[in-house]
């Protein structure tokens, strides 16, 4: 195996506590890194701001899904029940005034497609499903599910330099640093 060529994938760094990680994240954000992430055993409030994450686009995807569902149901019901084959039920008119009868289906399809768009949109955003991830090779990363506050800076970040990034991580308070290679 030792003959195989390896390329650096990322620096995995451990920090002592949530506040230390939080402040380190602010510094990484200010240094202009883009392809990086933090992993903690529990949710840390405000970490998204410290990382400089903007608002997620997922809600837009949900909205588009919802509108699609609404229009699908409306068109389906209106064209079939009113325009193509006017169906008189209980002497109710077949025109726009019949719309209350269509609401339950419109409501359900709106909810259904919103949920679909949200779930599948999220999967697309986070590039799931996938078989494996290089990070799983890192012993340090495993601590993030137990007691470790982990930061990962990936090598595909344009600001990533093998030496300088390591120094930078030490500078901002990383207690242990590991170069993960694939």
């Amino acid at each position, binding site marked *: 195996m030792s003959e195989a060529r390896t390329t650096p994938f990322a620096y995995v760094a451990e920090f002592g506590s949530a506040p230390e990680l939080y402040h380190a994240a602010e510094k990484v954000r200010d240094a202009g890194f883009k392809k990086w992430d933090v992993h903690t055993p529990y949710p840390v409030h*405000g970490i998204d701001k410290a990382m400089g994450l903007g*608002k997620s686009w997922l809600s837009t995807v949900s909205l588009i899904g919802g509108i699609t569902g609404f229009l699908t149901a409306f068109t389906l019901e209106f064209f079939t029940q009113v325009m193509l084959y006017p169906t008189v039920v209980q002497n109710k008119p077949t025109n726009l005034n019949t719309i209350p009868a269509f609401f*339950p289906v419109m409501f359900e399809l709106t909810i259904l497609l919103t949920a679909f768009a949200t779930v599948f949109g999220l999967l697309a955003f986070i590039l799931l499903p996938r078989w494996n991830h290089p990070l799983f090779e890192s012993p340090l990363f495993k601590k993030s599910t137990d007691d470790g506050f982990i930061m990962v800076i990936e090598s595909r970040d344009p600001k990533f330099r093998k030496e300088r990034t390591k120094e930078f991580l030490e500078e901002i308070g990383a207690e242990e640093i590991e170069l993960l290679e694939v």
Partner: protein
Amino acid sequence: MAGLKDADDFREGEQFKGGGLLKLALLGGGVLFLIVFFVLYAAGSEQSKQAMGYSWLFAVTYFLTLSIGGIFWTLLHHASNSGWGIVVRRLMENIGSMVLFMLILGLPLIVPAFEFRDALWEWFPKKAEIEHHIHEDFDQKLADLKSDYEKNKADAQSAFNAFKSEKEAAIAKPGVTPGHANHLKEAIAHEEKELQKLLDKDLSEKALTKEIRKDAYMDHHHGDVLLWKKDGYLNNGAWYFRFVLYFIALVGIIYTLRFWSVRNDKDGDPKWFLLQRRWACGFLPFFAAAWTFLVFDWLMALDYKWFSTMWGVYLFAGSALNSMALLILLTSWLRKTGHLKNVVTPEHYHLMGKLLLAFTIFWAYIAFSQFFLIWYANITEETVFYLTRNTGYWNKHAMIFLVAGHFFIPFGFLLIQQAKKNVKYICGVAIWTLLMHLMDIYWIIIPERGPSITHGQEMIIKGAIIYDIVAFLAVGCLFGFALLWRLGTASLFPCRDPRLDESLNVIN
């Protein structure tokens, strides 16, 4: 992480300062409009007096719903063991405790001397008329009925005796087949049973009175079978008794919770906090029952023939929504006048905005479900509610506007996250929602006025809108005054609540 607030810095609480001039203006305005209302009442004709009953009910109901929502949010906050809203919980309690003043302002509605009661709830005069018919020559009726029955009994007895001896003679005849004899015996047994039923008939005064009453209610000319069927619920004694129960339940719940909450401010003993949390769950069903039946008695009974099982939850949905809107406005006003500056953050606005969105949807869901079931089933007793409200003067455009204004506009607006965090936008939505609620309550109560007072001759009483405005301003000013006064009686937030830290630093 930086700048976490420490609850120990807030242990002293914050008193409501200022607002004195506004309080005075509101009290003055309230008294002034109250006087105007009474002058109009004293000078008005019989019809306008009756019309004013509806105006007063409309005004009281609007502000009653706001305070009911305050009770609900306090109860829910404890029952769900929430931490986010501790800083605004005292304001919820203050809004909720307005229920006492609103029920007191509602007293003219239930005191018969004002003539509001009989104008609002037609079953009172109708029932009184039927009862009057019953009591006319009551003793004579009772005696007649009794002698009728006694005569019937005697007649039936002799008829039976004749029948029996005839049949027995037939059986004794020679040549009768066993089958035929058996048949005759059965006929005798049957007749005897019928006779026994008549003889056993209870001729006590109580039983006969019930029969006379039932006959009077079933009468085609001046009776009403529905009033007989609903006699157990819609009768004077039960109605007043229920009002006392509602009063005790609603006022008792919120005053108890607020008392414990304020005690907690003084000594910081967690037992008060635990008491509130434990009892809130037990109070919830009583609160729900009291409010549901109160709106049955006050609003659904405006037309005693009409009914909707979703009525209670429909009014509740509007209450909770608009109480939240009022809470947002009150918080913003307090912040503007220099209170709660470091206590309430945009995160709290975001949370309150989310609840506003949730209850906008909930109201639409309930309102539509009620309409949908009635529209689809198309039963005469039920559709009358919507027919009154979308024909004639109350044309369907008002209803469609309510659908758009009460649901679609605030819904679209509140979907945007930034709109919920921005104080100006969320206050704009809150004001809009309160205006739509005004229209909703108006639309529930006032369309009953014309048909009820003129016995179906007119859909509207012309000019009566003046009374509505005066009544609304009178009750509104007094509500505002009472609320400002109430704010000053304790700290603006529960300053020694054990979970204040959590609420001060809430992030969602």
